[in-house]
């Protein structure tokens, strides 16, 4: 009798853990898309874009416009929103960031510029779309049980999108000329220039890809959290930073693994403690990693 109770309790614990892993996989998928975008841009340009969270917000709201106003399918809306966010990201780099880089502005100035940009963009979105909660009109799809893990069809699509995108990023960086050029710029931008790499073109591409991934991440994040405000991206930015830093800043493969680690641990922790502490857990991992391995866990591969 006692043995039966214990076995039932242990099986319950394992189910809870696996449920947490299921939720963790979804969060990790959203986080991986966003983190790789941020780290790619950092790897090539060597400064952190604090307005990156707002690129997610812009993507989410553009998709809302396409789906709710123009009545397009949510996935098509997501693609269009990501493409437009890529364009906006490129434009912001050319119009706002590049003039400072051309004047050789110090790193601190660039950080202040991107923080200012972040405030401007978030308030801009709020002025246009309003501060109230928005929601995509979309069905989550059928419930899929994989063992004790419960997914909606929509969530499985999100995991699939993340896997496809990570594979594409890997193939781009490893096997294409432009991908290798991005990695060379990440290693040493001066040497890349000396070797004949067209750094302006590569930088433009990094901002385009970063914006595309941010736009996409914004939409899948908004689908995952079901309702969102203009603060969507800025609230998620620090979790993205945690994943990027844990993986080793500027390293896309590290960002992927950092996202997996942060996603899994935060969601599993929410099974046992209050889910309001998820961000605290993410930062606890970050602090531990910074204490023992400040260069990030996954540093055997080069930046970008």
């Amino acid at each position, binding site marked *: 009798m006692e043995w039966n109770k214990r076995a039932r309790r242990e099986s319950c614990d394992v189910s809870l853990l696996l449920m947490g892993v299921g939720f963790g996989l979804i969060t990790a998928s959203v986080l991986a898309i966003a983190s790789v975008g941020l780290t790619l841009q950092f790897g090539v340009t060597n400064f952190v874009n604090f307005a990156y969270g707002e690129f997610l917000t812009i993507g989410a709201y553009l998709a809302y416009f396409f789906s709710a106003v123009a009545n397009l399918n949510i996935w098509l809306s997501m693609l269009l929103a990501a493409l437009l966010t890529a364009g906006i990201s490129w434009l912001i780099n050319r119009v706002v960031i590049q003039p400072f880089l051309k004047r050789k502005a110090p790193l601190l100035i660039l950080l202040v510029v991107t923080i200012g940009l972040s405030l401007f963009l978030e308030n801009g979105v709020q002025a246009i779309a309003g501060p109230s909660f928005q929601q995509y009109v979309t069905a989550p799809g059928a419930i899929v049980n994989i063992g004790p893990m419960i997914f909606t069809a929509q969530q499985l699509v999100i995991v699939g999108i993340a896997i496809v995108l990570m594979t594409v990023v890997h193939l781009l960086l490893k096997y294409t*000329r432009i991908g*290798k050029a991005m990695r060379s710029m990440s290693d*040493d931008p001066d*040497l890349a220039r*000396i070797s*004949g*790499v067209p750094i302006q073109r590569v930088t433009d591409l990094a901002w385009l890809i970063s914006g595309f991934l941010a736009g996409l991440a914004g939409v899948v994040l908004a689908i995952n959290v079901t309702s969102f405000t203009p603060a969507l991206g800025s609230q998620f930015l620090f979790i993205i930073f945690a994943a990027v830093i844990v993986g080793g800043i500027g390293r896309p493969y590290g960002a992927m693994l950092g996202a997996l680690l942060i996603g899994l641990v935060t969601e599993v922790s929410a099974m046992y403690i209050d889910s309001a502490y998820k961000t605290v857990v993410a930062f606890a991992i970050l602090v531990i990693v910074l204490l023992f391995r400040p260069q990030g866990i996954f540093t055997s*591969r*080069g930046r970008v």
Partner: protein
Amino acid sequence: MEPVLSVSEITSGYGASPIVKGVSIAAKAASTVVIVGPNGAGKSTLLKAVFGLLSIFSGKVYLKGEDVTGMPPERLVARGMGYVPQNRNVFPSLSVRENLEIGAYQTPKHTSERMERVYLMFPDLKKAMTRPAGTLSGGQRNMLAMGRALMSDPDVLLLDEPTAGLSPAYTKVVWEHIVRIAEIGKSVIVVEQNTTTALTSSDWGYVLVAGENRDQGSGPELLARPDIGKMFLGR
């Protein structure tokens, strides 16, 4: 024979202060030209100015007769000039093979053939082709840097102190490679601290002192000169 590279009275430096003042050099195809001089003579500054890394205040740079003064490095690479810096001259996280591929970025045609030629010249690199460049020794890195510059099939190759920090034995090996690069038709301009080896192995030498042309002549001729010997070799 017309020089492949001709530098005419250029003045250049960092910020507004000139370090190189009215210097002229020229290099013909299939030859090795060495630039020697005491520390602070402006040798490396001269190479950087020629390669578009520093502003040229006055003077001209001609590559195969075309005025390329102040042209950015990526365009110079496409036109046939290569440059190997003294420090940080490889991409440490990229494999040896990927480093070479980056060298062919501006001229991607015939990449495989050129890579085979580089491997033929530097067999050590072929053995290490999948290794990250950051794991190579100092001498191997210098060879990789030269190999990468050769991947764009340049007419002129500028080398900034390719033997700095290397043992005498490796210095000899590097110079053997430099001579071989010249033998395949390239014009190689080398800034070098190791005056004896450099002048012995080169076809022509320029002596720079305080940012100005002091002397020029064939390598052995300069080496035999008592004033040059006194200035560099403590004779």
